[in-house]
């Protein structure tokens, strides 16, 4: 396995990552040596509703991107009607700049599985599905090995820990589509169809996988659950801000010295994350911009590194906490180029179901390409601005279109002079400097 880049070892706020790097943590034996699955055993003896209430009280919010209150989502599941109901775990981590779920699955697959099983019991489901992106070969193997161990140990099966409550986990591999991170598209894909988001309502809690009640949660969200149940919601709420409790994992990447997946207490500022944890910029370089929550979060200029990592502060700064993928660009990055690259991503990954995202994303790409090629004009900037507005605020069926709009909007908003320079004067000062430096 590659060198561990990110949080591990004892620290007050290392709730999930404390034991990462410990020899054998990925094995059932190693995990149990550290108290693993004791929480599941205890949870199976509790009232399901008590578990839901505990998670509600912890203030845990989804770590997939939308940040919805996890306990509340659990409570949306209708009462059991005797038919099947599912927990579907979103391990389709595809948001550019985000690698924390991989970090969790590779380092402690059993922690992830324990969280999934607690959630399954809490919402009275017997069957969990993990939808993992197809490119994650290694995490997939690790999950499969861990599930095999659980079956052998009868923790998965008809009577986990002697409790008359059957539990099972199946793993389904994706096949390369970012849209599968969207929960209803994921369900379509799980059912073997083209992954196009469904119009909601009905919500998955009412009609999810195979039209049955379904709870969808992100890997990190569920990986946090064992800690909460073990130590209690009160302990968890000691971390984070009032509206945004706990810790979370940020994957920090880009033009910084120490990229890695860092577990932070929610509410610390990005200066701490970027300049301290990630070691700041390279010698002689300046940080220019950062995307605080994956590529879908609006880009912020370096001057806003004082923003804290909680959802409220980021929203106030007109960005979002998103999936916790923090990408950092220094002054060698041209913001029109970064915009182009991200737009290309959103256009390529558009499922094509709804009009604005299908057409608008591609139109934006072509417009920025024209500007980058030095063939733009002020009119193209106006068109680009209009296109991005047409992708936002409920115009699209799901959030992908909005994200594409935000990419353009935030870059044009914070770096207008770079767009102006490309479109009107047909030049790029960043590129000129880069050329001068290499000469």
């Amino acid at each position: 396995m590659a060198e561990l880049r990110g949080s591990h070892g004892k620290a007050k706020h290392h709730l999930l990552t404390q034991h990462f790097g410990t020899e054998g943590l990925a094995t059932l034996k190693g995990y149990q040596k550290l108290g693993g699955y004791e929480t599941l055993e205890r949870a199976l003896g509790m009232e399901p509703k008590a578990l839901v209430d505990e998670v509600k009280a912890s203030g845990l919010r989804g770590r997939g991107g939308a940040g919805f209150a996890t306990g509340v989502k659990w409570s949306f599941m209708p009462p059991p009607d005797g038919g099947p109901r599912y927990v579907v775990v979103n391990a389709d981590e595809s948001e550019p700049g985000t690698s924390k779920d991989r970090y969790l699955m590779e380092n402690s697959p059993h922690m992830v599985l324990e969280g999934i099983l607690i959630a399954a019991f809490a919402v009275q489901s017997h069957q969990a599905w993990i939808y993992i992106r197809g490119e994650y070969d290694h995490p997939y193997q690790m999950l499969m090995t861990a599930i095999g161990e659980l079956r052998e140990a009868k923790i998965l099966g008809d009577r986990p820990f002697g409790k008359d409550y059957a539990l099972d986990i199946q793993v389904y591999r994706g096949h390369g589509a970012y849209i599968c991170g969207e929960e209803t598209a994921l369900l379509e894909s799980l059912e073997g169809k083209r992954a196009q988001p469904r119009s909601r309502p009905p919500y998955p809690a009412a009609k999810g996988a195979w039209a049955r009640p379904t709870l969808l949660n992100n890997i990190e969200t569920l990986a946090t659950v064992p800690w909460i149940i073990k130590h209690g919601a009160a302990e968890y709420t000691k971390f984070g801000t009032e509206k945004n409790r706990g810790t979370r994992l940020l994957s920090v990447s880009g033009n910084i010295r120490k990229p890695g997946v860092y577990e932070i207490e929610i509410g610390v500022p990005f200066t701490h994350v970027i300049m301290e944890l990630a070691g700041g910029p390279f010698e002689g370089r300046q940080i220019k911009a950062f995307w605080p929550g994956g590529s879908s979060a609006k880009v912020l200029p370096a001057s806003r590194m004082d923003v804290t990592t909680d959802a409220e502060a980021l929203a106030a700064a007109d960005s979002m906490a998103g999936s916790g993928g923090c990408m950092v660009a220094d002054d060698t990055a041209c913001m029109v180029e970064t915009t182009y690259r991200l737009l290309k991503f959103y256009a390529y990954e558009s499922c094509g179901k709804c009009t604005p995202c299908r057409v608008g994303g591609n139109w934006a790409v072509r417009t920025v390409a024209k500007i980058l090629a030095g063939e733009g004009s002020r009119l193209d900037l106006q068109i680009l601005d209009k296109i991005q507005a047409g992708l936002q605020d409920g115009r699209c069926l799901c959030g992908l279109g909005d994200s594409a709009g935000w990419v353009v909007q935030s870059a044009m908003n914070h770096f207008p002079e770079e767009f102006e320079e490309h479109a009107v004067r047909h030049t790029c000062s960043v590129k000129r400097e880069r050329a001068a430096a290499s000469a």
Partner: protein
Amino acid sequence: MPDQPPQDGVTLTIDGRSVTVPKGTLVVEAAKLLSIEVPVFCYHHKLNPVGACRLCLVEISPGPPKPQTACTTPVAEGMTVRTNTAGAVAARADILEYELVNHPLDCPVCDKGGECPLQDYTFRHGYPTSRIDAPRLHFEKPVPLSDKIALDRERCVLCYRCTRYYDEIAWEQELTTDQRGVSSFITNQFDRPLQSIFSGNIIDLCPVGALTSRVWRFESRPWDMDHTASVCSKCAVGCNVTMWQRRHQLVRVTSHENDAVDDGWICDRGRFDYTEVNSPDRLRAPRVKGAHATWNDALDALLDGVRGKKLGISVRQDLTNEEALLLKRLVDGPWAGARVVMPRRTRIPAAEGETLHIVELERARCIVVIASDTADDVPVVNLRIKKAVSKHGARLILVHPDDLDLDRWPHGVHHVRPGAGGYAEALRDLRDHEYLKEGPVAVLYGDAQGSEDGGAIAAAAAGLAQAVGGKLMPLYRATNERGALALSLLGEETDLEGCEAVLIIGPGAPPASARFTAVWDFLLRPEHGEPDVLLPSPTFAEQQGSYTNLEGRVQFLRPPLHVEPPLRESWDVLLDIGQRLDAGLDFLGIVQIQKAAAQAAPALAALAGPPAPAAAPTAVLYGPARP
């Protein structure tokens, strides 16, 4: 929906006007009642809403502070909908602009031009100026989906109506979407031609010029045509159709939605099999021994030819009720003893009294289909069965020796294959099946294509219906079989073998025994041979009259084309024959014939009244002002 008094009424306000609609109504439908146009591409009232095109964005409160899709949102008590806020107007204009970014704008050569929602919506809801100067994306075009349908992928707005129709309504998967994002396109699998007999409906569904009829392609502009709402003549279902004429040519047939009969669909036979009407070989004047003749001479020759010989008459499957009455009078009078056959008819006996109506299939909890391949015999009833099963949850039992189209339902079809004991035994054994425990039960029966005694199958079906409290529906095949049976025109025999003189009305071959042959059709067909007398007839697009469909519904034809002399209405020619034979056929016009038919058979009572008025034209809806 509008003409039913709302039971569970929900009152909401749209653009300041109040409307009460049944619970579950979608906002887009509620707006229609107020003549407020909310433009849609993906939404279609016969398909499940998907919210894909985003053109129907309106502002709804209470609700999130951003536009919502009117096509997926059900009404709620006290809801306030605004279609004309700046945000909603801009949202729709932006979506329309997006639709045009890669659209070829080849309207001048597009068959849809003039009746195109994309044109109309852009006109009413779009931006008045264009800002698009990007090069357009291109696709291969036109792609033949079959020999009947062409697909222009550049015009396509990917509303998925066609693929959803194939999936939801027709239960086919041969039309799908490939690729994703802006590269997505509609395709038939590996370019294999579409096989479905219901393929043509996607042309009607397409809101742009992407799917066009290859039969009609480049034929005429929509505004050049007149149209009438008539009835299809191809089978006993009696689907309502719109027939389009231009300069005395029938140039197009489309669906004319009638929820009681066809639910808005027609099959490809009804849609595409019309070009014979315009054939240059159409018979216009009578002939005797191959030479042109006057009607007077031809009818004399006919009557001379049949006189004193054993007469056989073969009638077209779409013989009108009126023609049937007149023929019946002739074979009861001067032509007594003549044998009358109708090719393509079933062996099902005449129905007694009321039978199940097509629309009742949707309320059935279990549908039993006996001895009929409904996809071929009664295609659009087949679609209604599919709807009852997939949208209303009816259970399905098939009694037939072969695999059928309906077997495609993946969630449980009970298929019984009759054994040595035939249908009678199979149906007796079926009575206790669990699917039949919950009613209403619909029992549909055909005639096994004549392989078994039709009367026996009918009796067995009636026995089953009685045992489970079900209602019967005979699946007649020939267009006006039920009407002809109601007038007792048809006998037991199935062919004219042994007859010395024959009158072939419509397609059909004279028997070897015939010494005299008269043919009465609109084309001389190879199977007709060389008839002694040849009479020209009008087609389904010209003749007056009515059909009785398989459920017993009497429907009047509204022909789009006139009968041009020397061609004569068939009922008029039959009256002429009757007078020559002194048969007492002294009717002064078709209305009197219809009144007589209504008296002759209670099943045709509807003929006594005036035809139902033609459906009102679709209301012109006005949207809010453009941005």
